[in-house]
């Protein structure tokens, strides 16, 4: 009798998760290289008959016409994959800002020695001259910029070179390595624009920029978030409407049950 309430609860809960995902996307609309999430829902499996039907059939013999009505058991969130479509690339004028146009990821070394992957190229130089991300994690392999360097030049293939004491000649320091994944949507989000390889994403394929689809590195630029605020607002409106409709359907069903109670009070 009360199954519809449970079914509605799964719907309300899933839509609530979707609204949370949309809110997170909107909050990160200005985060460098943020990749928006999507809430993928799937329906739960169906039951063909209610218990009442089975009971009725069992009690009344074989002359019961076959009931082929199917009832759903609700809906659930199947996953919240990241959408790795390219964000727009904006010029910043900062020599340590790098944007990837393509599918690659920068590699950074975590405190525990493992690698994490990021699209955010807002790098800095720390006290020791290492190229680091905004949270001080070194890129991998590490590249050390000498203290007397007056200009840093990062080419499209990731080669880092410096000019020392305003010299016109450049000294090559190393090359930024990129990674890519068979299924980037399967990467595990660590926060702070970082991702970790998972079983779903597969192992990182390591390479260099400007080759094999890794994309090219653009110095003096940053990749912007790929969140489209208008689309997210539309998603929010639709999710709210569905939430309201499910709530209204529950209220209506409750009204029907109340009507039944009143009938009994006659």
């Amino acid at each position, binding site marked *: 009798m009360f199954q519809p309430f449970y*079914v509605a609860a799964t719907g309300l809960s899933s839509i609530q998760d979707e609204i949370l995902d949309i809110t997170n996307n909107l909050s990160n609309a200005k985060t460098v290289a943020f990749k928006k999430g999507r809430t993928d829902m*799937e*329906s739960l499996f*169906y039951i063909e008959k209610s218990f009442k039907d089975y009971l009725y059939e069992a009690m009344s013999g074989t002359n019961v016409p076959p009931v082929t009505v199917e009832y759903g058991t609700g809906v659930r969130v199947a996953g919240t994959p990241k959408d790795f479509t390219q964000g727009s690339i904006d010029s910043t004028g900062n020599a340590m800002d790098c944007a990837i146009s393509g599918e690659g990821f920068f590699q950074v070394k975590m405190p525990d020695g493992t690698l994490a992957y990021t699209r955010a190229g807002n790098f800095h130089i720390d006290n020791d001259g290492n190229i680091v991300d905004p949270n001080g994690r070194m890129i991998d392999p590490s590249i050390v910029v000498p203290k007397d360097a007056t200009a840093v030049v990062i080419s499209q293939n990731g080669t880092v070179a410096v000019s020392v004491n305003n010299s016109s000649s450049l000294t090559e320091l190393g090359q930024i390595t990129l990674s890519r994944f068979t299924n980037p949507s399967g990467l595990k989000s660590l926060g702070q624009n970082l991702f970790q390889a998972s079983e779903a994403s597969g192992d990182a*394929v390591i390479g260099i920029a400007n080759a094999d689809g890794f994309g090219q590195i653009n110095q003096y630029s940053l990749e912007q978030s790929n969140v489209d605020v208008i689309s997210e607002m539309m998603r929010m409106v639709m999710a709210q409407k569905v939430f309201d*409709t499910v709530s209204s359907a529950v209220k209506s069903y409750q009204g029907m049950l109340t009507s039944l109670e009143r009938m009994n009070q006659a």
Partner: protein
Amino acid sequence: MADRIFEIGGAALDVTDQMARKLIDNVVHAEVAGYRKAEVITNSFPFELDKAMNKKSPMKPQVEDSFYPDISGTLSKTGGKLDVALGCEGFFVISGPWGEGYTRDGRFKLDKDGRLLTVAGNFPVMGQGGPIIIVPGTEVEFTQSGEIKAGGIVVDSLQILNAKNIKSLDSINGAVFRKKSMNDVMLNVENPRILSGYFETSNISVIDETMKQMMLEKTNNAITEFVRNRSTELGKAIDMGRVN
């Protein structure tokens, strides 16, 4: 003497209850890609009367079947390389524990071994040559005709089938269907049209469902009111016949 009004009223309330369940079922799936709304089929009164005259069933309305109208959902643009929508009739073919399944939900993903899977349920997507496998690390692209290119080379084509009789499909979860019997025929869709970067949404119209819900509530209230009045009338009749 049993009053048939109560029996018929009870059956009608059972029908509205089942309709309400279906309605809630539909609205909670409004955001599920590829979901097909279900409608309850009830038998009309004359048909039931005929059945009753032939003593096949009692004279009361009855839910007999579910029906999945063949209306497409709208397309949602994602730009995702692994999101595809059908711009034609038919279904993508997937492989599940029940055997072959059919869906219009084109949200796909790759696993670490390069197998193309559905986002919902992780079921392998079938191509003309069986499960579709992409060499890990290569760039995937779907052409308008359903060819799958990996690194610019065609590796397979999506298998797109349509049921000869749409009623021969049985729903597994409203978004995935299967053949009701082995004898049902699925036909190959000639010249399919595939749209990459889109997926098909549920075909639920929230407005339609809201209108249906209002009608249903009113119908239910009318039936309960009718039964209540009948009960009151019977009560009065009993009182009238009571010896003081």
